[in-house]
């Protein structure tokens, strides 16, 4: 965790660009939260069935740890939209981001429960990428 599930219209993102976009999204998340890169997952679902609302080209269901500030979530949203607009043909206004929050003690990754944001354990966890 975090887990970003991107539902995208087939025409707005070339398959060859998925990895680059996932790398950009990972960078944004880590810049804003300080999380190690190895914990950031991005899954794409191509909306071949045209189930997205007419005014939406990319919909993110972003599952992140709870405890982030309102400012952090706002920055995440803005920067994710910008990063996505650069890698796709989607207009920023057609990129929707729905943030879902999960308490850290409800997730195990890397063999341990995730640390609470701001806890002493988080500092050691953040250093995992160092």
């Amino acid at each position, binding site marked *: 965790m975090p887990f970003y599930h991107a539902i995208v219209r087939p025409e707005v993102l070339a398959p060859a660009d998925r*990895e680059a976009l996932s790398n950009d999204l990972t960078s944004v998340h880590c810049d804003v939260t300080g999380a190690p890169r190895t914990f*950031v997952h991005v899954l794409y679902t191509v909306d071949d069935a045209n189930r997205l609302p007419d005014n939406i080209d990319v919909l993110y269901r972003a599952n992140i740890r709870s405890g982030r500030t309102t400012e952090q979530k706002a920055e995440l949203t803005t920067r994710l939209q910008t990063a996505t607009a650069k890698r796709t043909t989607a207009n920023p206004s057609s990129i929707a981001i729905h943030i879902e929050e999960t308490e850290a003690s409800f997730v*195990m990754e890397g063999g341990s429960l995730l640390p609470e944001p701001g806890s002493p354990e988080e500092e050691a966890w953040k250093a995992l990428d160092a």
Partner: protein
Amino acid sequence: MNTISCLVQAEGVAAQHQSELEQALRTNHATQLDGAEVDISWRLVESGLMFTAGAPSSSSVIACILNGPTTLTQRETYMRSICDFWTDITGCTDHEIVVSISEISDLPTSHESVNS
């Protein structure tokens, strides 16, 4: 009914051991939750659709929905067990496994709703 949704890489090791993993999930669930049954679903992710740390992913994501509330110790024990047998069966590392728990509460019966 509790549920477990497993998201694994279609070309990865976990997909090759799906039956064994599913049996282990059922056994673990029943052992820790007094014989409770569980619905298990699988999504096999095709290559090029999932990335971890900005690179093609080898991760498995096991999302469990359990009747709550659970204690921290119960959750940690439950998720630790999954990590242990998942690594044993697949040979993957702990860093390739994400386990999460969401809690559901029993909905009140109509009788309870009327009287509340």
